[in-house]
């Protein structure tokens, strides 16, 4: 069994590997909701029943073929900070983190599969992949689901499909989503138009940590709303098509910004670089906004492309629970802002100054000492 400290130390597989369109799509995720046939759903079940369900499911999940040497823990054994670390890593939901006795999380070594026991449903299973690769994420999770189905009977009905606590998840029980980095659409003030268009066709756009959260770091989650009356493959194909279009919009917006206002772009990236390299107190929101600019800079060639991965790592590392785990104690808000700035200065120490010639091109304003 993998320890929490190992889980924390090991970067997730998706971080280390560049999936399709990784410049704009950080991750693709598939979530399946499943329930057992007999017992009440977690929100309606008594504590003893939830514990019994957990005790039945947890060992079965640990023994699945993809779960070798996994991390598996009863949530009542994790303190608030550790639970929050799992949320920040997108391995459990905020709702799950609020639960204790009778809830558990099982996460594979690669951190590509995570199974929540007794969240809103008896099982919430998630698969995560680098870049835009919903098909591969679904294939991996479908395999696990089928394997588990050989051992337990899931509540399923001919008319309603997989039965879930909330009717919004009925049918496939599947939520497919991708995390998109859309700085140019935000800077160009086009992002609301895109969100509205996407909403109209039955897809949802949410912030960094799901429902009701802010779009920090210019990151947006696009996902399907409908789970009933459409096949899994069709839902995924439709979603991928829309995401491809959003990617095109973002790329066009970046091109347009470079053409119309190159100095504005350079200013954003330059200020972000300066703040992250030299600030001594920095709030989470400000840091995330600046990291977003550096990430766009890396995509545009202003910063080495190889740094994009470090930036993605930092998006998670500077979150409150990660900082407190690094400090090995609870920190006040002010202490966190100081430590955050320290982590950023240290981790970005080697980062060369942005080479703005990639943005502005060689013009009369460009000083001769800037290397091409």
């Amino acid at each position, binding site marked *: 069994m993998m320890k929490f400290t190992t889980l924390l130390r090991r970067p997730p597989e998706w971080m280390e590997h560049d999936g399709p369109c990784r410049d704009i799509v950080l991750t693709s995720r598939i979530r399946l909701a499943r*329930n*057992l*046939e*007999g*017992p*009440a*759903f977690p*929100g*309606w079940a008594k504590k003893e029943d939830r514990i019994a369900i957990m005790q039945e499911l947890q060992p079965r999940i640990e023994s699945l073929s993809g779960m070798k040497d996994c991390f598996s823990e009863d949530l009542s054994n994790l303190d608030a900070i550790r639970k929050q670390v799992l949320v920040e890593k997108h391995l459990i939901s905020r709702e799950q983190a609020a639960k204790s006795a009778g809830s558990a999380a099982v996460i594979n070594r690669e951190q590509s599969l995570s199974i929540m026991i007794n969240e*809103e449903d008896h099982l919430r299973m998630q698969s995560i992949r680098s870049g835009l690769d919903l098909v591969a994420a679904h294939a991996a999770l*479908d395999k696990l*689901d*089928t394997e588990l*189905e*050989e051992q337990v*009977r*899931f*509540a*399923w*009905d*001919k*008319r*309603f*499909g*997989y*039965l879930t*606590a*909330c*009717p*919004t998840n*009925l*049918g*496939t029980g*599947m939520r497919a989503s991708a995390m998109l980095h859309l700085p140019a659409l935000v800077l160009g003030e086009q992002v609301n138009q895109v969100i509205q268009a996407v909403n109209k066709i*039955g897809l949802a756009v949410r912030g960094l940590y799901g429902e009701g959260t802010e779009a920090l770091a210019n990151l947006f989650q696009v996902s399907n*709303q*409908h*789970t*009933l*009356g*459409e*096949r*899994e493959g069709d839902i995924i194909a439709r979603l991928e098509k829309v995401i491809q279009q959003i990617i095109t919009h973002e790329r066009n917006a970046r091109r347009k910004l470079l053409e119309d206002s190159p100095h504005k772009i350079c200013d954003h990236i330059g200020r972000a670089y300066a703040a992250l390299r030299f600030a001594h107190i920095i709030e989470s929101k400000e840091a995330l906004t600046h990291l977003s600019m550096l990430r766009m800079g890396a995509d545009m060639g202003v910063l080495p492309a190889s740094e994009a991965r470090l930036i993605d790592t930092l998006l998670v590392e500077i979150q409150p629970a990660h900082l407190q785990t690094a400090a090995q104690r609870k920190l006040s808000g002010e202490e966190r802002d100081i430590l955050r700035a320290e982590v950023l200065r240290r981790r970005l120490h080697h980062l060369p100054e942005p080479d703005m010639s990639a943005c502005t091109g060689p013009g009369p304003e460009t000083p001769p000492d800037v290397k091409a």
Partner: protein
Amino acid sequence: MKCDVCDDKTATVFLTQIVKGNMQKINLCENCAKEKGVTDPTGFQLADMLLGFGQGARVETQPMEKSCAACGMTQSTFRKTGRLGCAACYSVFGDGMDGLLKAMHKGTRHIGKVPAHLSTRQADEEHLAQLRTALDDAVSKEAYEDAARLKSEIATLEKSLKQRVRV
């Protein structure tokens, strides 16, 4: 128009309810409507209110409410929380959910994944129905050799289906 309960404030809530074929009407001001729990349509019976203006009437209406025998979930709790209590709830409340499902989904029938143990059984049942039709056909054509073969095929399939149900 004045409120039927306090006979003081202006009525802004107008209710019509049909009970056993009789139409009943009542006009309430905002305060009285709130006090009588009119905002919760499941726990409110106009008849009770007209007859005794409510004392204890809401408790009496509870047993009439639809509920799940397996887990005890009631219609009003489901409406309030939007969550069902267990899988069996869908056979209790499922029939009334079409409108809700139409608003939130692409369709009201599942067409996605079928659990493996059910998908083979479903296919087997369909195959069995086909074999029975073929058997009738063979008998009517007096093709007895075919009929005998079909009969033994049907017997084998029936046996394996029965065994699987028991598992």
